[in-house]
């Protein structure tokens, strides 16, 4: 393409000017890329830390709220809720798990399909916390026996035994206590079995628990928001229902605020940088068109149409901007290296304070190219008004 060739030759011919413009563009774009990289590094790692553990999305009811079944199902239908299960009173929710002569006491945690802690849960399965699993020496797929005991009014003790399959083991970091995640219905059945002496077996207790589940009142909920960003909303919804919760909302808010503040700073700098880039390019191109009127007229004279001549400032602006962006990316990578060395070990051993991504580069490039295109409009329109006769008159 002849016009592109002319644009490249012209930049090469006036390379000191082009270089100055490129350095100017790089000076505006490099800090922007670095800030984006630092926001990406700090925020995404803090967020990643939160997202890695489902417990960040967990809301645990505190106090002794009385929760109706309808409330539980209504919560379960909310789009920002990933999982909800009714809680029984804590005392009722303990049991023994046995395997091959080894036994350990566990707290029963109501679980079910969609529980982020018990992925792969099916009826008749149990997910054990790491301490519980290692006390029993079991792995995924092993069979264990759940022993639910009760003491009758006359002091005699009796127990029911259920065989469950281990669906998974929670990593130690997620639960330090001895926990067994079983179906919410089974936890309720345990409560029924212990409270109602006339219920003969766990099978009967389960039937009663199932039949009466809609009339029962629960002692709280175990609830997971769909994402970290949904926690605040779910929390408000629970407060409106009179359920106070514990969650990692403060940590989440810190990350969100940091993200928003850095984004605002970046947006302000981006706007100033884009305006500066556009103005300096526009001025440079306007001057170029004025200086080269006779040449542009000559190009019209020998057959370039006005669209081609209008394209020249646009192509030159784009080429210079691409050059400036290449410099900016180079500077950004150097800056990233320095930042990561300077801050190594700070912020709780964060792997990288600055983490440049392709998206950062695409964003800055799109902004710079858009600014350069806008800047080219003036030079382009001015060039488009030059007719072939300017070659004869322009000297």
């Amino acid at each position, binding site marked *: 393409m*002849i016009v592109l060739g*002319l644009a490249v*030759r*012209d930049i*090469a*011919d*006036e390379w000191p000017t082009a270089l100055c413009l490129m350095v100017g563009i790089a000076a505006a774009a490099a800090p922007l890329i670095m800030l984006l990289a630092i926001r990406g590094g700090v925020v995404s790692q803090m967020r990643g830390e939160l997202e890695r553990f489902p417990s960040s999305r967990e809301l645990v009811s505190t106090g002794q709220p009385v929760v109706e079944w309808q409330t539980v199902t209504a919560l379960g239908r909310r789009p920002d809720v990933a999982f909800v299960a009714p809680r029984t009173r804590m005392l009722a929710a303990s049991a023994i798990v046995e395997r091959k002569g080894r036994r350990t006491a566990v707290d029963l945690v109501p679980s079910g399909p969609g529980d982020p802690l018990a992925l792969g849960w099916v009826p008749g399965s149990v997910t054990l916390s790491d301490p519980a699993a290692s006390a029993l020496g079991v792995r995924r797929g092993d069979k264990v026996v759940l022993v639910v005991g009760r003491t009758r009014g006359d002091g005699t003790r009796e127990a029911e035994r259920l065989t469950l399959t281990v669906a998974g083991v929670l990593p130690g970091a997620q639960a330090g206590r001895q926990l067994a995640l079983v179906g919410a219905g089974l936890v309720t059945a345990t409560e029924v079995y212990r409270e109602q002496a006339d219920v003969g077996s766990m099978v009967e207790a389960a039937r009663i628990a199932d039949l009466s589940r809609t009339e029962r009142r629960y002692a709280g909920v175990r609830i997971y928001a769909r994402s970290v960003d949904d926690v605040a909303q779910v929390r408000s919804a629970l407060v409106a229902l009179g359920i106070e919760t514990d969650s990692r909302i403060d940590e989440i808010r810190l990350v969100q605020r940091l993200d928003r503040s850095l984004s605002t700073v970046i947006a302000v700098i981006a706007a100033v940088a884009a305006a500066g880039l556009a103005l300096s390019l526009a001025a440079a191109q306007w001057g170029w068109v004025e200086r080269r009127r*006779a*040449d542009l007229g*000559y*190009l019209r*004279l*020998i*057959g*370039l149409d006005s669209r081609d001549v209008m394209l020249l400032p646009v192509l030159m602006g784009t080429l210079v901007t691409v050059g400036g962006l290449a410099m900016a990316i180079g500077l950004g990578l150097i800056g990233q290296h320095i930042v990561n060395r300077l801050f190594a070990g700070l912020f709780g051993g964060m792997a990288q304070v600055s983490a440049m991504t392709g998206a950062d580069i695409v964003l800055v490039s799109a902004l710079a190219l858009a600014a350069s295109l806008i800047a080219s409009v003036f030079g382009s329109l001015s060039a488009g008004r030059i*007719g*072939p*006769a300017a*070659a*004869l*008159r322009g*000297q």
Partner: protein
Amino acid sequence: MSEEPVVYLEDVTIGVGAGVDRFELSATCFRLLPGECVAVIGPSGSGKSLFLEAIGLLRQPVSAGRFDLALSADGVFDAARAWRQADTAALARCRLQGIGFLLQTGGLLKSLTVEANIRLPAAIAGRPADSLSLLDALQLTAQRRLKPAALSGGQRQRAALLRALSAAPGLLLADEPTAALDPGNADRVMELLVDTVRRGALKAAIIATHDAERARRFGMSLVEIVAGSTAAGGRATVDSRAMLCAA
């Protein structure tokens, strides 16, 4: 070669400006025959460039009785009708295919080498740059890879001539091609122009110059722009029947 005029103007009036600054040039009769190299002479501001602009189809005449151009084998182009019908595409096509321009200071693009400058018009027209074969004859072979800034004034103007011939035009329009040159180089360029027409590389050439003596010395026909005046502003006439012929 037919004796059909390459350029045939009758009662063509070209105007520029408005009010007291209005200037009009009338070509009552101007005929340029194949093989002719005509110098349009007159002092600065007499309308020489205006005349070239009109013949180069860069400026619309105020009125045109006859404005025929026979630049290629395609026949006669009726520019008077094309202007009347505002057929800018046909005008541009005729200009691009038939007319080469040689400017006062060469007007070479400074970012391109001599060779790239010469190739450019041909490349835009989509044909080979035949005039590159003349580099040797014009003693520019050593300079072909240099940029215009590294050339002397004479070399630059010779390169500009090759560029003007690059797309193989039928008619060359040269606007004061020797004005910026020393006498030796000026002679050289004039000689080349006349020689190019004589060898048939061009059908004809029109050179606007204020240097009547040099044009005459190289055997060109002279057409003088005769200044007149009207109440409103300047007026001039060009008439090749009043041609001052030399040799």
